[in-house]
């Protein structure tokens, strides 16, 4: 199509058109159907405030047609109507007000009870505006931070002057506006001033401008958030000038929502900016002088202004048509205005331009409490002349540059409201609805808001908030608080969810330097905290046998790795760990639990003493990030002079395990690896295949094993060398599954799989890892208290007879049909030939040798710790 595709019709577009202007020029008058009663609604504010022109544009719902630039090929459809907004079948609801009273969702369909399940889906189907295509992939929008000295919001005359003044005083300035300067202002002295000032601003390098950038919220800091196309701005200025202007106040009278009733600035914008004739015969309702200025723009566009309804005392000497003193009390017409009633007279017209009093745009201002904010122009007070507004802007800019006082907000008193008509255009709340709700006891504006949903629609109170307060004040003139302004919260302008989460953290997926290698040899990956680790290389049993019988290799580069150093390092670790650290000689290492203050196990790993008060720590894969900050927190609390350096990413780690591990590594290293030179639970600095490694002799999988830590960049080189050297023993890489089976045969626990948030060392039989005779350590006091109590449940190893099917992890433990515990780990042990596992079991049944039922099968509580090689001869080999 050459123009807009508007529900299948080709609508021509002219230069500078908004969607609203193009549609209106082509004859569209009904832009939407109202939320509840499906009343026809037309253009009203033409300034982005009211909900009347919300349309779906290219699949994006609730786009303001009066703000969105028109583009050839755009697909535009109206919302909340079936089959069309012009002939909406649901408009019948407008005749059924009695069935949908105010607060109807608390009342209708609830009695009789059986009715609600039928009514609820109907309400759900009719609720909401627009249809979101759930197949649309969300875009990831980025966040951009700005740090100007002074931020100016609003590029009217006051905002432009403020930006120039602040820049003149030496500040860097950012100036934003929700449209472009002058976009809503027809030619005249104001537009001329805006054009002149905009050119002046463009010539000042210290001023950064961003147009079409509506502000959505103001927060302490101060932080102002604005949206600009595909970016969300976080602006962090020292001071803010709010020059966001004013708007004509919403006037309420009978059928005030009919298409053809328009705010005067909106009608003038259509006529003077877009060259669209807003009506043939117009009545202008003037409550302030600016409204009379719009008559010229309307006349120039070909509108016949037949009468002016003027407030008492307004100077109308320049008006050439008939002047009626008083107020408009009703509009007449079915789908659009055909006449209005004022001072008892009925005047035929198709346009009523409501030039009501100017109300400050107070949304951001009301969020500015206790922030360094200066308010300027119409946002500060209504009825400013052009010269006053410019002077106000200059003064504000100078004050902001000097660092303003914290701003305190004094809310305005509400204006008056008519006896009939719609207060809220978003949610179809009429004066009568509010009066009924007040009679039901919801008397304050804040309660009325919650009960009737007035101010809660897309306009966020721009249209209705003042008139809501006026109705509340009129019904209860003696109760001052009923008219208090309702609480205002960001976003002050509707934004999309994409905009709301702009810059949200990307999902982290960490890989070791060997991931590509793992994948190339058939490794399947699984999550382990933020890491992807190898689950298996296709055959868990074969991987298991390689470790038990020959030699295997596992990538343990994901382990948390820390260097701890500094004058207080030894004392620090003595207090961090429940076992002894100070007596560790250089070259020795020790297994360590980590406890929180309640004595609960949070992690485990090893401590290597490097000498000179330096230590190398490993913790679990999932614990590294958390423990880094946890240790730093304690160092800060104790005032220790200690450095905790997280080397998790910079170091790689491989574990070579199995009876042939020594023979294999000796092929690659000249350093002595024999039992005497490098015994069990020692560490050494050795060179393997030319790579400097910190090697530890550990026993997690229960065989002779060397855990090598080295610069991550050497990972592939070392891996390849070990695999090649191990070929003569048919070495196999093994994954997490095989490792879990191997360690279970040794009776070792895995933190967070076998333990929970109540697990103390006592409950898992690890008293040996805690030295209560130490001075102090994290969790000591709690553990001493625990000693006085009997734990209700204990973690125990269990075995089953050969030929019994292995129960799944998570299976229940029962005794005489009653629940007695749960399984945390279970595998069929290939070496022992029967199922083994760990389970939490009630204390009464936890004694060694007790018969229990695990997953429905008979089992026995195991009497030792390790199922395999209980004396640990193999790992000491």
């Amino acid at each position: 199509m050459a123009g807009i595709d508007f529900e299948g019709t080709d609508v021509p577009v002219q230069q500078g058109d908004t969607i609203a202007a193009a549609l209106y020029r082509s004859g569209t008058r009904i832009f939407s159907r109202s939320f509840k009663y499906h009343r026809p609604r037309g253009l009203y504010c033409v300034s982005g405030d009211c909900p009347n022109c919300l349309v779906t544009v290219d699949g994006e719902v609730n786009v303001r047609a009066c703000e969105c630039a028109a583009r050839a090929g755009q697909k535009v459809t109206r919302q909340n109507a079936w089959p069309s907004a012009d002939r909406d079948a649901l408009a019948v609801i407008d005749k059924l007000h009695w069935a949908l009273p105010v607060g109807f969702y608390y009342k209708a369909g609830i009695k009789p009870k059986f009715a609600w399940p039928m009514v609820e889906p109907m309400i759900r189907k009719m609720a909401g505006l627009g249809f979101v295509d759930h197949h649309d992939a969300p875009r990831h929008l980025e966040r951009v931070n700005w740090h100007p000295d002074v931020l100016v919001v609003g590029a009217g005359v006051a905002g432009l002057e403020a930006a120039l003044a602040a820049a003149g005083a030496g500040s860097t300035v950012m100036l934003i506006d929700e449209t472009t300067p002058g976009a809503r202002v027809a030619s005249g002295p104001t537009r001329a001033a805006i054009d002149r000032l905009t050119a002046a601003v463009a010539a000042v390098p210290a001023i950064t401008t961003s147009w079409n950038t509506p502000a959505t919220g103001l927060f302490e800091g101060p932080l102002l958030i604005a949206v600009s196309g595909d970016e969300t701005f976080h602006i962090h200025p020292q001071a803010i000038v709010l020059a966001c202007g004013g708007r004509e106040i919403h006037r309420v009278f009978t059928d005030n929502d009919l298409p053809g009733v328009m705010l005067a600035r909106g009608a003038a914008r259509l006529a003077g900016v877009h060259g669209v004739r807003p009506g043939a015969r117009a009545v202008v309702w003037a409550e302030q002088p600016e409204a009379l200025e719009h008559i010229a723009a309307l006349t120039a566009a070909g509108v016949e202004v037949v009468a002016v309804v003027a407030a008492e005392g307004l100077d109308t000497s320049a008006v050439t048509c008939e002047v009626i003193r008083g107020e408009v009390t009703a509009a007449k017409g079915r789908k659009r205005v055909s006449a209005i009633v004022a001072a008892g007279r009925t005047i035929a017209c198709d346009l009523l331009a409501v030039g009501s009093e100017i109300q400050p745009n107070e949304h951001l201002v009301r969020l500015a409490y206790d922030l360094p904010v200066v308010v300027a122009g119409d946002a500060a007070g209504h009825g400013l002349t052009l010269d006053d507004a410019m002077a106000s802007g200059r003064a504000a800019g100078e004050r902001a540059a000097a660092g303003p006082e914290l701003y305190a907000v004094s809310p305005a008193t509400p204006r008056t409201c008519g006896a009939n008509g719609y207060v809220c255009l978003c949610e179809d709340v009429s004066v009568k609805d509010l009066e009924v709700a007040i009679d039901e006891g919801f008397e304050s504006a804040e309660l009325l808001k919650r009960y009737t949903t007035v101010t809660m629609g897309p306009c966020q109170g721009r249209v209705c908030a003042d008139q809501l307060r006026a109705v509340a004040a009129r019904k209860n003139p003696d109760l001052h608080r009923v008219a208090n302004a309702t609480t205002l919260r960001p976003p002050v302008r509707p934004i999309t969810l994409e905009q709301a989460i702009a810059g949200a953290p990307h999902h982290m997926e960490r890989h070791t330097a060997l991931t590509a290698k793992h994948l190339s040899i058939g490794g399947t990956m699984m999550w382990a905290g933020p890491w992807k680790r190898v689950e298996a290389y296709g055959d868990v049993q074969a991987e298991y046998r390689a470790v038990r019988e020959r030699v295997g290799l596992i990538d343990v580069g994901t382990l948390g790795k820390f260097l701890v150093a500094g004058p207080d390092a030894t004392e620090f670790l003595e207090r961090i760990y429940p076992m002894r650290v100070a007596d560790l000689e250089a070259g020795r290492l020790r297994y360590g639990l980590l406890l929180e203050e309640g004595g609960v196990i949070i992690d485990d790993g090893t401590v290597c003493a490097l000498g000179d008060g330096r230590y190398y720590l490993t913790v679990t894969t999932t614990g590294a990030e958390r423990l880094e900050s946890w240790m730093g927190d304690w160092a800060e609390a104790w005032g220790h002079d200690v450095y905790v350096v997280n080397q998790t990413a910079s170091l790689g780690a491989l574990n070579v395990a199995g009876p042939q591990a020594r023979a294999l590594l000796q092929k690659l290293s000249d350093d002595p690896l024999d039992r005497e030179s490098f015994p069990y639970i020692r560490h050494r600095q050795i060179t393997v295949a030319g790579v400097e490694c910190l090697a530890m002799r550990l026993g997690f999988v229960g065989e002779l094993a060397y855990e090598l830590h080295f610069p991550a960049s050497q990972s592939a080189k070392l891996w390849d060398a070990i695999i090649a050297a191990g070929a003569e023993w048919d070495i196999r890489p093994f994954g997490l599954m095989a490792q879990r089976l191997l360690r279970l045969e040794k009776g070792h626990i895995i933190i967070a799989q076998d333990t929970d948030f109540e697990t103390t060392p006592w409950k898992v039989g690890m008293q040996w890892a805690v030295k209560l005779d130490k001075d102090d350590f994290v969790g000591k006091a709690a553990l001493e208290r625990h000693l006085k109590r009997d734990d209700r449940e204990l973690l125990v190893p269990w075995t089953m007879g050969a030929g019994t099917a292995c129960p799944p992890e998570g299976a229940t433990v029962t005794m005489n049909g009653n629940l007695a515990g749960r399984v945390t780990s279970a595998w069929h042990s290939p070496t022992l030939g029967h199922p083994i596992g760990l389970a939490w079991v009630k204390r009464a049944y936890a004694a060694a040798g007790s018969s229990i039922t695990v997953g429905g099968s008979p089992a026995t509580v195991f009497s030792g710790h390790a199922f395999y090689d209980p004396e640990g001869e193999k790992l000491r080999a």
Partner: protein
Amino acid sequence: MSHFYIRCPNCGPRACSEFSYNGEVRPLADPAASEAAEIDRLWLRRNANGLQRERWFHAAGCRRFVTITRDTRTNIIVAQPGEPAGDVATHA
């Protein structure tokens, strides 16, 4: 959405979004305290409506901890890292 600056002793004034909040500072264990008092210390938080001594971790910076005093009603920091906390109660 809250926003304020924390003066990191290593990195200078940085946006609070670079830090992760580690909660209010609690007193260290007192060996002489009763068991009930110790359990309160471990599990109950003041959740101050006013001045609070608290610790932040400069996660997107130097990865060290800083201790500040903040007014939880206004997010105004009354004592930056290294400054004395004054008479702010750390625990009720």
